[in-house]
């Protein structure tokens, strides 16, 4: 147990980084191996100071790169400890190889990802390029829209990943700067409440159990590789039930409710925006104002859990609207945006098949204002009224210079 007691108020004013680092402290992470990178640096920096000052009984491992950081996390987790770290952008990219190792070895590491653009051009600000880079890595991905949620979801992440029927690593995403460096009211749990919620770490097949030697990271060729990967995918799909249970328990404890898909003003919505991160909340402001001032029945749907992708819940949330604008905050690299593709696939299996169009926006931290999002809603209203997509199917929102768009609806 830690030597020192940390003083907390019922109401704090914290930024997302500080909130995440407090969750790491309260979960009493045993090992954090880290190579700091903007904008996630304060998470690991704060954890280091908590160790040095006796607030955590843990180890801070300094390493020479993010590849080494995640490798050390893999080692420590296989050894049998509670393990977490944080990264962003280029650091995340350098970790990618080891991310796949961690999920394949079924190690419940928690990774705080403070979303930031990927170079080139070099850029330290927030977009979802790194988050998207992790989407096939076999990790559970939770998405926070503000600092409070970065804290809450970090606590939930340990409970979900360490559940013995899940045993998978979990990322908790927050938007670089807009969440990580924005101070807001945060209502933390007490240390006792938080730790009791997360619970003691109960290892499975820990390598430090010398009475029962085990192998991690074995080689399997065409004889077993496919079965292993299928099982891993099934574990990820089956984690949905555990995620729901953990969210329900967290609500009982804190009063704050999380769902794998969040819906805002969707009961009677005619048009909707689907987004991730802080944009979700800004879009809620836009929806509310449009309902009040322009009579547009607007709503917002957002995956809280990006992986496993809530295909069925997205479909349920959107099947009755007429038009949907899907917002992708990552350069699509010669395709439609990834979220657009996934939402479209879900909606293709509905009888109504709402009109779905794609907006690329906010790259490299470009501001996304309430007015920008109102424009997206107004486009959807025009599409709904016309009965077809009236704009290019993929557009760029907030881009300077001439309008950029791709593909038109095929109409006979």
């Amino acid at each position, binding site marked *: 147990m830690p030597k020192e007691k940390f003083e907390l108020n019922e109401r704090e004013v914290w930024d997302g980084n500080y909130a995440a680092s407090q969750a790491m402290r309260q979960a009493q992470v045993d090992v954090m191996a880290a190579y700091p990178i903007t904008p996630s640096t304060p998470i690991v920096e704060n954890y280091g100071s908590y160790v040095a000052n006796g607030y955590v009984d843990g180890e801070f491992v300094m390493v020479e790169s993010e590849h080494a950081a995640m490798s050390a996390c893999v080692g420590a987790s296989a050894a049998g400890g509670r393990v977490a770290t944080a990264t962003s952008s280029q650091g995340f990219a350098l970790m990618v190889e080891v991310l796949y190792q961690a999920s394949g070895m079924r190690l419940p590491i928690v990774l705080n990802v403070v979303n930031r653009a990927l170079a080139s051009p070099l850029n330290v600000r927030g977009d979802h390029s790194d988050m998207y880079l992790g989407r096939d890595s076999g990790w559970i991905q939770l998405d926070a829209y*503000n600092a409070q949620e970065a804290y809450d979801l970090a606590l939930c992440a340990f409970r979900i990943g360490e559940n013995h029927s899940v045993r998978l690593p979990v990322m908790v995403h927050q938007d670089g700067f807009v969440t990580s460096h*924005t*101070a*807001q*009211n945060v209502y933390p749990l007490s240390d006792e409440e938080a730790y009791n919620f997360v619970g003691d770490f109960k290892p499975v097949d820990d390598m430090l159990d010398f009475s029962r030697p085990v192998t991690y990271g074995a080689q399997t060729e065409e004889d077993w590789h496919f079965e292993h990967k299928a099982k891993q995918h099934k574990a990820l799909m089956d984690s949905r039930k555990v995620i729901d249970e953990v969210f329900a328990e967290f609500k009982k404890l804190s009063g704050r409710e999380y769902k794998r898909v969040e819906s805002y003003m969707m009961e009677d919505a005619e048009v909707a925006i689907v987004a991730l991160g802080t*944009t979700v909340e800004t879009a809620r*402001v836009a929806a509310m104002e449009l309902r009040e001032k322009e009579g547009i029945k607007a709503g917002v749907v957002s995956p809280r859990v990006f992986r496993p992708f809530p295909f069925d819940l997205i479909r349920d949330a959107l099947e009755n609207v007429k038009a949907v604008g899907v917002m992708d905050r990552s350069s699509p690299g010669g395709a439609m945006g990834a979220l657009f593709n996934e939402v479209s696939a879900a909606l293709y299996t509905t009888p109504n098949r709402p009109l779905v169009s794609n907006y690329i926006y906010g790259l490299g931290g470009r501001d996304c*204002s309430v007015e920008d999002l109102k424009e997206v809603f107004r486009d959807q209203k025009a599409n709904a009224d016309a009965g077809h997509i009236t704009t290019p199917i993929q557009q760029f929102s907030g881009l300077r210079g001439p309008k950029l768009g791709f593909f038109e609806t095929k109409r006979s």
Partner: protein
Amino acid sequence: MTEIRWHSRAGQGAVTGAKSLGDIVATTGKEVQAFALYGSAKRGAALRAYNRIDDKPIINHAKFMRPDYVLVIDPALAYTDDITLNDKESTKYIVTTHLSKEELIAGIPALQGKEDRVYVVDCVQISLDEIGRSIPNAPMLGAFVKISGMFELDYFLENMKRVLKKFPQKIIDGNMRAITRAYNEVK
């Protein structure tokens, strides 16, 4: 919703000022947001910091705002930065300067016609006198408390002591004097 934009140079404490203000406002039961937009992250570079204050949770995460208050804590930025950007007919300006209000406005065309909403206070001189260094953020908070009427001065000072508790007593006392002086001297 009350929205505030700070114009400052890195090192003058606008980010700390915005966060301290947020911290204190939160103790009154309100919801707050404090963030900054850095240019090149170097000491002396122009930057803007922002506050939002409301009775309900603040879910607008856009940087864009039409400020109710513009707080300028570097005298030269009043001239070189676009301090009236996206303003409203009710936006109030508090500018750090050694000039009189009339002299200041005479040199800044964008402030002309807004005389009744422009306030001046010499935060640089006050912080030099009372804290011994040019850190104009604390006095600006005193001026803001006066102009906004958001708090009683004593309530603000008590809470500011809590925000500053990790500093030596000498620094805390200097800040208290600086806030009080700016509260009394802003005009």
